[in-house]
Structures are given as structure tokens and as C-alpha cells.
């Protein structure tokens, strides 16, 4: 990496502060204000303070980029503002201590383009996120925004638009992966005067925030994609269904709608054509199931968001019984690019059946968590180890879970599998809306299955029996296993129930809810067996199955564990080996955390008896060297 070179200062510079939800929670609004104030105080006429939407690298937030050189600052705080202004913006000397440090090499990296997290990505959907001010339509127009819409309206028939999208191979990014162009075509061909174009922005998967970031960071691309879709299918009325928990996205989308209408990109006779479209924002009330299209439409209609049986599919009978088309935010954000660059260009990325790119919210036991966009077909290993920077703390990789709470957990043997709709489905998981949770050796797979199922179980709309009661039965069994009360027949029962629920449920929520259990049963059956047969949690994670012991040959009798134990279950005295009362211990792990590393006297075990005295005895261990690194 090249070190940033100071320049002679006072040249034209813009510092973009990220004002995505993550960075705002890290006080980026205050940082922006402080920057503006400081720049004004220093009288720097060439310097502009501006903001962008989410950069995706939320872990490093609040982040800022200074253009034109592309210096990337991570973990900025208000206190850093004077230095940034004086050193960099005024004197041209970037603030090195705020550079991003590569977690693997520990090297400071000044330029955005050199950061591995970014430079391995291929950004189509997120192309503008972090690059422009989402509250200014001019910024979007300056990047070629609304040119695709213009091209559609002036040069293409709706059929040609559909054909182009079909040819691009774009598939629904909401998870099911149905070809987008075909969906439009069904709706276009469905009889009916009134048709509805709906954007599904009810992103409900825990930990997934790509739709939110897209709407916050580049709302106009969603609107443009939606308008093109409406034109293609022949709809004059549109709805964007956003969860109310996304206030910033709601605000920016509403603002974008207003700006777009003012510019004549929405409303009656768009760009002088015969085509008109009015888009309404409908805020959802936080039910996960409202991401299911029929439930979403019921919710727009003012009814309780509950899925209904399909067919009829929305394309023939959707919102208010009229032909409707529902696309995910990411699918729509892709559309303007396909129109601008052509289907062939888009189809050149990805695999044979899965074209283009996909966005993942990479989280869990991973060095670089955040939003990433990668070409379809990229191996999981590349995402986790190169973009994600691997597992922190030199822990061992255990599994990766894709597709949100209804996705499956894939083991190490799948790391070289390409990421696309078919491969993930074949492995028992799914693309979903793009959650990707990395787990290391300390994650218990039974517990993780229990966790995901507890989410879907609680979010079941309650309509159909398998999903409402079946998932609860499964959850109860998993809880039992985690408590060490599992029975040998539980594994078969879980398997059967899982299959019953998958095959018998009314909607996708129920049909996919057992996935985390079924995949962990498939790939990590030994962990279930250990829990049930040996009452042992191999990951040392299930509280009821683990124990903490103080090793008599290591304990120095310092008393730190005794003082910190919230359950007051450690006995001991100065220079006496401390002893944990196993009956009283709540297995919180505080003793393990506080025991000085150089002593290493506390151990965590599962289904294992450690030989310790019943009562405190005098310390016999040699005092270790002061620094034991």
C-alpha cells in the first residue's frame, strides 16, 4: 500500500460523512455539524462538507471519505474533527491514525479503493451507496440517473423492456429467485385495467439491512427501477411497503418521491410520455410475515398481514384483487443498470442460471462485518476469508448460515461451493434476502437452530397448523435438548416434524422455517447426539450443559473471581485455592473472564468432571511470571 502523500492544502475537497442509520447512531450527524462549523471557522472556501448513505462497512463507522483523493476514515468521532479539518482539509495532510487497519495484516490503508472489503466487491445494486448525497436528486442525475427511464419511455416498448430484463437473467432478489422479467410479463398479460406495482421493502430478517441501506443511500435508483417496471407491466399505481422501523429510509424515499415528481420523473405523463405513475409509501408495522407477498398486499389493504394460498398469484389477482407485481428493493435497484448497460453486460456476471450480483449482510464471527455485493457464483470461502477478513481471534470456522432465519447452516465442506440460488438450495439452504451469518467453533449448532426457530415461530402468523403449532413443538424439543433433557427419539421427531412443516405449511414462512434445524441435523448431527446422549455441548455454549472449574494447580488465590462472581458461589481466601459451588453456579462465565490470563486457572467444560477439592485448600501453584504472553 502506498502511504498518503501530503499536498499543498487548500485545494478543492469534499468530505463525505456517512449518514446511514449505523453511522448516525455513531453520531455522524454531530460530526457533520462539527465539520461544517470548523470548516467555516477556518474559512476554507474550497472545502465542502457533504453526506452520503451507507457505505456498507458499518463495523468501521462512522466513516468518511475525502474526495477527490479517496481517503477513507474509519471510526471517526466528533473529537477527531479539528484534526481532520486542520491537518487534512486545510493543510492537505491526511490523518493517519484514522485510516482503516486491515485486521489480518494490521496495515493502515489510506485509500478506499485499496481496502480489501471493498475492492473484491462488484457493486451494481449498491453502486451509488456511499457515493452520492441521497437527499439530492441532482447527484443521482449526475451519475446518469433517470437516463434508463428516459430510454425506456422514448426508445423502448414495454415489451422490449420486459424482453431486455428477461434476457439479462435477473431473478428476484427477495429470495425466491423467480425471473423478474417473466413476472412482469405475467402481470402485463393479465387482463385488467388497473394494475399495481409494489416494491417490497419489508426487510425483516434479523441482521439484514441491504434494502434499508439501498433506500437510505440511493433511493432514486429504487424509484427509477420501479417506474421502469410499472411502465413495462402497464401499471399507473405503485406502492412501496417499508417497515416503519426504518424511519430514515421512509424519510429519504418520501423525499425522493417528491423530488422525482417535481422533476417530472413520476406523476402524470412522465417525461412527456403517455405513461403515468403515482407511488405511495405504505409503512409496515413490523410483522416479519408481511414480507410474504400475499400478506404484504393484505397489509396494504388495511387487513391483518396474513398470507393466503396461491394461486391465484398476485400477477392475476393481487392488491384489491387486481393484477399486481411485487419486486424486492434490490431487484428494482438493478433494473436501471440493466437498461443502461444492456442485458448482455449484466448477464456476463454471475453463473449460468444466476446472473449478476448479490448483496449479503455479512455478520457473526467475522472480521469485517457489513454489507457486501459480490458476483453470483463467488465461492463462500472468498466472501468469508477475503472480503470478510476471516474469523477473528484465530478461531476455527464452523458454519455459515445464509438466507435469514429460514436459511440453512452450511459446514466447512461447502466453503468452496459457489453462491447462487441453485447451489444454496441444493445444500438445504437458500439465497433468501441475503443474510450471511458466520459461526466459529464456539457456536453451538443446536442452540443456533433453536435461536432461528424461536424467531420464525414467534413470527408465524398463526393461520396454519403446521407452522403455528409445529414450529412450537420443534422449538420445545430444541430447548429441551439444549437443557440436556433431550431423548434419543427427539432427533427423528425433529426430522419428521421439519418435513411435515415444510411440506404442509401454507406459505414460505412455514415452508422454510425448519431449514436451520434440518440443515444442522444434516451437517452437525454429532452435536445433537452429544447433547442428547452425553449431555455435552461440544461448543461449550449451552449453559445448562457446561461447568466452570478452578484448577487447583493453577489458582493463585487472588480472589478476583470470588469478588466478581454475581452468584456468590465461589469459596476461597487469600492464598487459598478457590472452589466453585457447582450447585449454585449460574454458568455466567465471569470467573473465566476475570481470571488473569497469566493464571489461566478457570476452565469451561461440558460433560466432563474436573478434579477439584471440595473446600478451599492452600495454594500450591508456582507464581507465574508477571507477564505471561
Amino acid at each position, binding site marked *: 500500500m502506498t502511504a498518503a502523500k501530503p499536498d499543498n492544502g487548500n485545494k478543492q475537497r469534499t468530505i463525505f460523512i456517512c449518514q446511514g442509520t449505523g453511522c448516525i447512531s455513531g453520531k455522524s450527524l454531530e460530526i457533520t455539524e462539527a465539520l461544517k462549523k470548523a470548516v467555516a471557522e477556518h474559512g476554507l472556501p474550497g472545502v465542502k462538507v457533504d453526506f452520503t448513505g451507507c457505505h456498507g462497512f458499518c463495523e468501521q463507522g462512522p466513516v468518511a471519505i475525502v474526495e477527490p483523493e479517496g481517503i477513507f476514515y474509519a471510526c471517526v468521532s466528533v473529537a477527531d474533527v479539528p484534526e481532520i479539518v486542520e491537518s487534512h482539509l486545510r493543510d492537505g495532510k491526511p490523518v493517519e491514525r484514522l485510516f482503516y487497519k486491515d485486521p489480518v495484516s494490521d496495515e493502515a490503508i489510506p485509500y478506499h479503493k485499496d481496502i480489501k472489503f471493498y475492492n473484491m466487491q462488484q457493486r451494481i445494486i449498491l453502486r451509488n451507496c456511499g457515493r452520492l448525497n441521497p437527499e439530492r436528486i441532482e447527484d443521482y442525475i449526475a451519475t446518469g440517473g433517470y437516463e434508463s427511464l428516459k430510454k425506456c419511455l422514448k426508445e423502448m416498448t414495454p415489451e422490449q423492456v420486459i424482453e431486455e430484463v428477461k434476457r439479462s437473467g435477473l431473478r428476484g432478489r427477495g429470495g425466491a429467485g423467480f425471473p423478474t422479467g417473466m413476472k412482469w410479463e405475467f402481470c402485463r398479460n393479465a387482463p385488467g385495467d388497473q394494475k399495481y406495482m409494489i416494491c417490497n421493502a419489508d426487510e425483516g430478517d434479523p441482521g439484514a439491512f441491504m434494502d434499508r441501506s439501498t433506500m437510505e443511500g440511493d433511493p432514486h435508483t429504487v424509484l427509477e427501477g420501479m417506474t421502469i417496471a410499472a411502465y413495462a407491466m402497464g401499471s399507473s399505481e405503485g406502492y412501496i411497503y417499508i417497515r416503519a422501523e426504518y424511519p430514515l429510509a421512509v424519510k429519504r424515499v418520501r423525499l425522493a418521491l417528491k423530488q422525482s415528481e417535481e422533476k417530472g420523473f413520476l406523476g402524470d405523463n412522465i417525461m412527456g410520455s403517455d405513461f403515468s405513475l403515482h407511488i405511495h409509501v405504505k409503512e409496515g408495522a413490523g410483522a416479519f410475515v408481511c414480507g410474504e407477498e400475499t400478506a404484504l398486499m393484505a397489509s396494504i389493504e388495511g387487513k391483518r398481514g396474513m398470507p393466503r*394460498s396461491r394461486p391465484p398469484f398476485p400477477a392475476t389477482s393481487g392488491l384489491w384483487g387486481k393484477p399486481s407485481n411485487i419486486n424486492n428493493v434490490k431487484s428494482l435497484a438493478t433494473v436501471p443498470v440493466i437498461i443502461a448497460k444492456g442485458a448482455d453486460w449484466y448477464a456476463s456476471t454471475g453463473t449460468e442460471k444466476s446472473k449478476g450480483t448479490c448483496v449479503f449482510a455479512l455478520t457473526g464471527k467475522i472480521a469485517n462485518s457489513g454489507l457486501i455485493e459480490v458476483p453470483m457464483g463467488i465461492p463462500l470461502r472468498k466472501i468469508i476469508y477475503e472480503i470478510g477478513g476471516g474469523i477473528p481471534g484465530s478461531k476455527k470456522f464452523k458454519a455459515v448460515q445464509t438466507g435469514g432465519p429460514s436459511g440453512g447452516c452450511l459446514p466447512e465442506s461447502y466453503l468452496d461451493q459457489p453462491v447462487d440460488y441453485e447451489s444454496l438450495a441444493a445444500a438445504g439452504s437458500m439465497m433468501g434476502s441475503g443474510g450471511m451469518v458466520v459461526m466459529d467453533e464456539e457456536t453451538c449448532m443446536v442452540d443456533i437452530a433453536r435461536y432461528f426457530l424461536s424467531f420464525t415461530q414467534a413470527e408465524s402468523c398463526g393461520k*396454519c*397448523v403446521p407452522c*403455528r403449532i409445529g414450529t412450537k413443538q420443534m422449538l*420445545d*424439543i430444541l430447548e429441551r435438548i439444549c437443557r440436556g433433557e433431550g431423548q434419543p427419539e427427539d432427533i427423528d421427531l425433529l426430522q419428521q416434524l421439519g418435513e411435515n412443516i415444510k411440506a404442509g*405449511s401454507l406459505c414460505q414462512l412455514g415452508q422454510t422455517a425448519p431449514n436451520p434445524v434440518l440443515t444442522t441435523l444434516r451437517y452437525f448431527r454429532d452435536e445433537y447426539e452429544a447433547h442428547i446422549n452425553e449431555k455435552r455441548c461440544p461448543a461449550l455454549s449451552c449453559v445448562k450443559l457446561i461447568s466452570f472449574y478452578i484448577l487447583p494447580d493453577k489458582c493463585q488465590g487472588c480472589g478476583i473471581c470470588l469478588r466478581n462472581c454475581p452468584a456468590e458461589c465461589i469459596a476461597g481466601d487469600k492464598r487459598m485455592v478457590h472452589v466453585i459451588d457447582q450447585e449454585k453456579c449460574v454458568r455466567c462465565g465471569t470467573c473465566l473472564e476475570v481470571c488473569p490470563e497469566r493464571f489461566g486457572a478457570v476452565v469451561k467444560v461440558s460433560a466432563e468432571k474436573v478434579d477439584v477439592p471440595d473446600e478451599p485448600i492452600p495454594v500450591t501453584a508456582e507464581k507465574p511470571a508477571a507477564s505471561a504472553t
Partner: protein
Amino acid sequence: MEAVTITLNGVEVSGYAGTTILDLARESGVYIPTLCHDPNLASTGACRLCLVEDERNGALLASCVAAISPGMTINTNSPRVVEHRKRILELILASHPDSCLVCDKGNRCQLRKLAAEMGVGLIQLQKIPQNDVIEEVNPFIERDLSKCVMCGKCIRVDQELVVEGAIDYIHRGTMVRAATLNDMPLEKSECTFCGACVAICPTGAIMEKERVYTGTATNTVTTICPYCGCGCTICLGTKDNQIVEARPAVDSPVSRGALCVRGSYGYDFIHSPERLTQPLIKVDGEFQEATWEEALSRVAEGLGQIKKDHGADALAVFGSSKCTNEENYVLQRFARGVLGTNNIDNGSRLYSAASRTGLGASIGYAGTTGSLDALERSRVIMVIGANPEISAPAVAYAIKRAVRFKEAKLIVIDPRNTPLTQFASLWLRPGIGTDVALLNGLARVIIDEKRLDVEFVTRMTDNFTGWTKSLQNYTAGYVEDVTGIAKKDVQAAARLLAGAEEASIVYGNGITQHTSGTDAVVAIANLAMLTGNAGRRGGIFALQRENNAHGACDMGALPGFLPGYQSVDEAENRQRFEEHWGGSLPTAAGLSALEMMKAAGLGKVKGMLIMGENPVASFPQPALIRKALSSLDFLVVTDMFPTETVKLASVVLSAASFAEKEGTFTNFEGRVQRLHQAIEPVGESLPDLEILLRLAEVTGSKMPYDSHQDVMEEIEDMVPFYRHVAYADTDSMGLDWGDVEGSSPGTRRLHKGLFPSGFGRFSPVEYTSPQDVATDGYPLTLMAGSGRYHFGAGSRSSRSARLSKFSPAALLEISGADAAELGIGDGDAIKITSAQGELSTTTKVSNSLPRGLLFMPISYPDSPVYELFGTVLDPQAKGPALKTCAVRLERTDGNG
């Protein structure tokens, strides 16, 4: 429609496109178990028990929602299907308490039945109880949602059939359940206690409460509800000669699986300890129990003596709009043929005389012109002067369904904010008694804007020109001045009504119980004819308060008409009956109900036979009625209860209830429906028909009827429009008038615009300022009408333990504005004073009333609201103005 062929269990079967697999299977005789499916409700595919397998791809489909598609190879019983079904049932059972032994649903529980059927016994799954206790104090419905299987039928029946919206899903996951808004007890919700949810619940989760007689019904008898004019079919469950439950009949063409609170829970009057179980003869002012022989000879003697001394016209007979057609027919024959007087009338005089007169004059037929189905199909429905939610619930259900699910537009014309206004596209709030001006105004807008149905008017009606001239004054501006309804709203309503392909006008006692009632009915008929909606499509729907108001009049329990509205004036008509009955019939029209009472007061009528009516409670000025009846030489009353009228009788004949007899009722549509006896008469009571036949025999004029069938056969002969009612057919509840359209044109119904008399006639009617509204000294207008929980004069409903418990007293409803002005709060004791009398009660502040209008329900014997009303008659129909009167209010001391 295209036929689709599928393979069902190896056999090729075809159905129309769109048919579900379940429906086709049932048609083909293939059984598929279901729990959440109901033919009257939209299918939701919730329980998944109806899963079947498509063998082409192994997909499991919920057959209740999956439509057939070409080439499907369905196996309804593959091992995989069976395994899944069993598992689903196990899951449900794992969340269901093992309390079958003590559950009232017992052997009728569908869950238990399915478990037995599929051989699911003990299950290996862990019990996951759904604990749910709801504190409910209402006496009708109790919910134990620990037994709920979330089939959602209660929610759907509430929303789709009754369209009340009292319950919906709440929460998610295993916490989900059916609940009221904010999960309040039913009595604090929108629930009307219609009982549809109780009837449809497959398990013991929603049950009937506080039943008078416990136990499971051992027999079920299908009959007709005895309360309002809707004529819903009810299934009475019986055990030990007791009625243990009343349930809606799912295949009733009137109510399709729903009743109202009265129908579901008001039947217990049958077993009231107050039932008269034996005839009574008054001796020295005290009633003494008597045998039937004693009582009937006493009646024969009493009536005979008066006839002998003062002539037949010193006798009067009052028939009942609650009794059967057969009973009313025999009663009028008794009056005319045996007693020799035309002094016969029936209880419907009090509320629907104006309908008969007005419609008779306009369209030549004295009743509703369409079926409820036609009403539900209408594109526009105008409801004027009616609150069907209370007075005719099945009609309200149909209207609400039309609006909610069939995109019909509703115009409500009512000064009160009735439950229907929230469904209305347009709600007009005219001043009391200004209906004629409004209706004329609507007609004028339609004519001025050339929105009339020219073809219909030209071909089917006469006097159009003459009538048009009479509308000269009714400009929208004038109408606005008179009614208080903005010009633009009058125009909007007129355009909506005239613009509809099919429009219906529904009206009730708010029209008929005014002095201008007949005029208003004529104005409605004019409007319907003008828009081409009389007879051939849409129609005029004249609500009838009581179950057999239509029938009692059809049967000739009227002073001027022989059965079938054949005028007594015409010798030809009399001759037909004379030939049939022998002897000669009286020639001059007799006295109408209120005229009889007046004549009794004047000593002109000296003896009276009252069958199943309670004029002391149902007529205006009860004191005068009481006095008139007390002054009679002889009064005989047949009734079930010791009513206010019964107490004045010389002889009381204990009558059987509807559940204890056979016969027919004719509902407000004109639908003749068959009653079936569910239990033996209580005590020694007898059906009125039996009483009358025995009485005739005792008087020496035995009638040639051995049964109700014999009577109906004669009715079929003598009443042209009952001719098609082959007695057996009235059992088939699906009987619709369309069925007989071709075979007997122009008889019963107004088909294809063919009025019985050839043409409909436009008649001018003029608005006159109302007499029955607030005036000097009486600054408020009191409206009287039905309440939800009681009925008619209250003789029966006040003796229903649950109805009385839930709604023990009549409260005076007052608008917030008036209450504030008069310093009156909720529950204050007040005195209402009118020119006729006074009444004390307590208040309820209501936001459904406009300023200046009060509302008080009738039907509470302890609060006889008609004390306040005068005896002002509609000059044409001779019905009393019982809708409104002028009153003043005062708070009384010592109020709480």
C-alpha cells in the same frame, strides 16, 4: 365455462375451471376431512387437514383452496397424505386440553370426530397448552380459547356473513387467537351476540352460556324463528321435551348460517315458569283453572250471547301477526263464517298498514317485490326509515355483504346514526317526518336530469305525466329547506339511485309509523318505478316487524279483505268463500284494530276474541286500551303468558309456542316457510289452530279440517298467490320465486315488470308538515323503536332469562348536545312528559342522535313507551303514528 378433467384417486372426473379439489371430490363422493372449511365462508386453507397429493410432482395441496387444473393426478389418501394429516391432527391435539369428558361439546366436537376417524389416539408430542381465560359476564357466549384450534371460522363468519367485525386475529405464533378489539370481553366489543360463532365453532372453544336446560340435544328440528319478519330457519335442539339450543340452519335462504341474538338466545321464553299451562276462567275477578271443555263452552256462550243480544258486529276479532297462516286463516273464517263479522284485524296494523295500502295502490301488490338474494345483488341500496341491524338482522347482513363484498353502494336516509351508516357511501339525515318531501325531491332530480328508466316508465306504468306535474314544487332547494339535507346530497343520492343497473329500496317502520306513512310508501314506489326497479330487478323491500305480518294479512285477518286481498265489498269474492264454507258472509268492511278499541270504549263492541296479541302493551295510550277492554262484556284471549291484556280477559286460552306446533309463516319477502313441531305443547296448552277448531266445534260450526295440511290445502285453493305453495314444497327452503316464474305468471311475484294489475301507477303525494314532532311546550322529539335484545311488545323477550338479564331496562337515549344543555348525564333518572302521558326512566347519552331527537326502545313492559303516544291515525291506512311524538324532559329528584 370450461371443463377441467383431473384424475381423482385413479378415476377421471371433470369440473368447471375454478372448482376446488375439495368441492369436486365431494361432488364425486370422495371424502376429504376438513376442519376450517365451511361452504358459506371463503376458504383459507388454515387447518391443512384437507391436504391431498398431486402424484405428478408430489406436491401436497390444501384441497379446499387449490383449484383443479388440467392433468392433475390427485390422491386423497396416499400414505404420505395420511401421515401428514395425522401429524397435523396430533399437533392440534397436543395443544388441546384432554377435557373431553367434561366438555359440553362432547360427541359433537369435530376435532374429536376427526381424531376417531383417523385413528389418532394418544400422541407422543409434548402437550403445549394454550392457556386462556376470558372473563365474560354476558349471559350468551362463553369462550374457552384453550380449546381453540384456530380454524378461524368464528372470525370469518363474523366478518363475511354477519359483517360485524367484532373479532379478528390477534398476536402471532402460538399466541395467536381470535379476539375483539384490544382483546376486551365480548360485551365491551362490537359483538351483537348473534351466536353465529357459537354455531360454527368446531370445538368447545365458543359455547352457549347460561342455558336453561343443560345437556346435549338428542334431536334437532328445523323450524322458523318466531321473532322478526326475516323468517330465519332455526334448528332447535331438543332433549326431554325441552329446547336446549337454537342454531342457525346453514342452508337457510334467508340467513345462511347466521341468526341474531333473539333467534339464538331468546327461545327460552318457551320454558318460562310464567307459561300459561291451562285455560283460565275469571270468576269474581279471579282466574280459576279450567278444563278445555269448560273454557271453550264459556267462550262459545259468551260470544254467542253478545251476538244474539247485539248482533255480530258487536263482536271483534284480533288476529296475530305472530301466529301461523293456517291459524289466521281459520280465525278469519271463524270471525266471518261463524261469528258473522268483518271486524277482524291483526297486529301488523300497528306498523305495516301503510305499506299495504301504499304499495297496493302503486304497484298492485302489498309487499316486498324481491328476494333477499336480489337485494344482495343490487348495485345500489337505499335504506330509508329503517334500522335493519336491529329490526331485521338478516336484511342488514345481506346489505352489509353487498357493500363489503359486492361493491354495492349504500345510501342511508335516517336521522339516527344507525349501524349501517358506516357502510354507506351517502348518509342523509332528514328532519323527522320530511320523507315525502325528500322522496319527491329525489324523483324530481331524476326527471330533471333525464335519468329515469324511460322504457320501463313508458311500458309498465301510467299517470307519469300527472305525477310529474305534482313534483313542480320539489326543487332541490325546497327539499333542502324542508329536510335540512344539502342540495348537493339530494342530487348525489338521486344520481346514485338512478345510475344503478339494479337498485333496491329498503324501508321500515320509520316510514310507515307516521301519519304520512302511506304517502311516503307511495313516494317510495314512485321512485322505484321511475328508476325501473320495481318488480323486475332490484326492488322495494318493505320490512315487516313480526314473523308473520305478511301472512296474517295474506290470510285475510283484515277488516276489508278476504284471504288474498279479495275485497269483502265484492259479491263475487264473497261468493267464492260462501260456496266453500256454506252460509253467507258479512258484506261491509269491518273495524280496523284501533277502531275496534274505540268502539269497545264506546260500548259498540261488546265482545272480543284476541289471538296472541297484547294490545295493552302494543297500542298507543295503554290506559285507554285497558279501559276499553275492561268495559267489554266478554273478552277471550289466547296467549302463552299472563300479559297485560290477558289480565283483563274473561277467559284465557293457554296457547302453545311456535316450537310446539306445525304450520307456515310468510316472511317479509313473501316466502312461505314451514314450521315443524319440536316439542309437545307445554302443560295443557294447545296450538291456536287446535283451539280455534275446537272452539268452532263447540259453537256448533265444526270446520272440516283435521290438520294444518287441510287448512293449507284450502288456502292454496282460495288464495291465488299461495297456489304454488304445494305444502310439501315449503320444506325445501331453497324454494325461490324464480322457480315458479314461468308456471304461474303474474300471481305471486312481480316478474319482469309485470304488475298484477297490468300497470304500476304513479300517484302524486304531497308533503305536509309533520304533526308528531317537537312543538311548543314539548321541545324534543321522541322516537320509539325496536332494541336489539327485545322484541315487539316484549311478551316473549321479557320472559327470556338471558335477554332480560343482559338488557333489563329501557333507557332513554339522548344526544350529547341535548344532555349537556339539560344538565343530564348518563344514568340520570328522568321523567318524560308528552301531551298524552308521562314515563320515568334513566338516560343513556348517545352519539347516534342529532340534537333534539330522543330515542326509547319499545318492548320493555316496565317502560311502556306508548303511554306517551296519542292515537293519531294515518288517514288512509288507519295505522297509528307510533314512531315519534313531542315530549319534554325533567330530571327527577334523588337520581343516582
